[in-house]
């Protein structure tokens, strides 16, 4: 069985845009993140579960608004009060989540194939987001995340690294084509390497 990623038809690999006389190693890099499991964890109002007792690879659920946590293989994002998004490259992560979550405490929704995710890496990554989103990024740091809009498309923005600056931007799969166009169009003036 072959898996077709949301951007497999849009994401054309190679160098694009204004990259004349630029060091290719320092170019903005844009990559589609594929083969990732995405689960939404939503704690019920009536539940008394202490979320400090939940952890994945020793990462706890962020309790404050706008925070995310994790590493290269796992991201846990605060989405709303008592709602988190878990993204993982571990295909068996659901078993670990279900082991810790009782049915009476959480609603778990598998969103794995419903999102398109782009990783934007490089010193101009901040400018790419500023060109399309009204989000105030002045105090945006590593492990900050926010839901916002990008050229009218609802997106989740997660800053996974600050050196080099790396953002994961996630949109609904049905918007994948326009979302990809919006991001790459904003990147053309800097030149980018689609990897």
């Amino acid at each position, binding site marked *: 069985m072959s898996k077709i990623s949301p951007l497999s038809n849009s994401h054309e690999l190679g160098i694009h845009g204004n990259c004349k006389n630029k060091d290719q190693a320092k170019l903005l890099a844009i990559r589609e993140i594929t083969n990732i499991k995405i689960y939404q964890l939503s704690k019920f109002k009536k539940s008394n579960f202490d979320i400090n007792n939940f952890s994945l690879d020793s990462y706890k659920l962020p309790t404050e*608004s*706008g925070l995310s946590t994790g590493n290269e293989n796992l991201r846990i994002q605060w989405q709303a*009060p008592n709602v988190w998004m878990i993204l993982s490259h571990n295909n068996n992560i659901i078993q670990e989540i279900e082991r810790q979550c009782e049915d009476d405490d959480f609603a778990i929704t598998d969103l794995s194939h419903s999102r398109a995710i782009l990783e934007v890496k490089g010193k101009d990554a901040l400018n790419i987001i500023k060109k399309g989103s*009204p989000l*105030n990024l002045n105090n945006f740091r590593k492990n900050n995340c*926010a*839901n*916002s*809009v990008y050229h009218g498309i609802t997106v989740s923005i997660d800053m996974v690294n600050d050196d080099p600056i790396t953002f994961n931007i996630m949109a609904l799969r049905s918007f994948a084509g326009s979302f990809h166009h919006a991001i790459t169009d904003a990147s053309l003036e800097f030149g980018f390497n689609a990897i």
Partner: protein
Amino acid sequence: MLEIKCPYCGNRSQNEFAYGGDATVKRPELNTEVSDQDWDNFVYYRKNPRGNHLELWHHISGCRQWFKVLRNTATHDIIQTMEMKENP
């Protein structure tokens, strides 16, 4: 363009929000006799004041929570935002 302070996410652009109507309208009580006039008032009639107005807003492209906004309809000043259970 307004900047609205979501009680959960902080200051965000109006682009991320959807207006949800007058927050002072109360649905008639369940299981009681409701006159046509009361239904009419609930469904259609609004005060549309010039000045401070309590509104519902939805952070639709953010945390997807509903909340209340006290806004001046003449100056567009947002005086206060609060969670649904709170009052100005």
